[in-house]
């Protein structure tokens, strides 16, 4: 196990902590906007994690997945933000 692998495992633990915190916010989040924001955070962490996996293992197979995610990450949160109303509390 090389030093880069060790660094990758440490970064993976940090990605995991961030993703779990975002998941807790999705479950708890008092408003719908909090959930949309936490979904965005989770997606950004997933993108960073995919790219980190590529950098550690030295392949480029998921670069296209990152391109598609960067293009379409906008759809969900903008849809939620546009159609949110004052009465949608829960």
């Amino acid at each position, binding site marked *: 196990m090389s030093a880069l692998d060790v660094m990758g495992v440490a970064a993976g633990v940090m990605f995991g902590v961030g993703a779990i915190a975002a998941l807790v916010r999705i479950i708890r989040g008092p408003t719908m*906007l909090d959930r949309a924001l936490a979904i965005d955070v989770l997606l950004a962490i997933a993108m960073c994690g995919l790219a980190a996996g590529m950098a550690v293992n030295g392949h480029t197979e998921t670069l296209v997945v990152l391109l598609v995610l960067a293009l379409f990450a906008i759809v969900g949160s903008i849809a939620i933000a*546009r159609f949110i109303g004052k009465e949608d509390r829960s």
Partner: protein
Amino acid sequence: MNALELGVGALILLSGFLSMAAGVGALRFPDVLSRLHAATKPQVLGLAVVLLAVVLRVPSWGVVSTVVLIMTFQLLTQPMTAHMLGRASYRSDELRRDLLIRDDLGRDIAEYEQQRERDDDPAR
């Protein structure tokens, strides 16, 4: 272990730290606007450093062009998302006004309302 691998590992660790900070910030900050502030860190800087790590690890022109495309789309779309979320939270009153330092949008809305009342005045 050479200098290149050390740099790649440091960039990955920085991205992991930013992601962890965003998750913890989204969990612990008090309202939508301050959570928005924490959430935008891995979306731009975290992704930028880890894509730089990919380019350093696999240096070819195909990878560089795809990485530039990814970063361009990310920089185009994520500010729109943050803007729409912040605006929706303001419009639906889901923010803590005691935490605001400046409120330019509220001032603009008040000016617009005054202007409309003057225009609708029948005694003019």
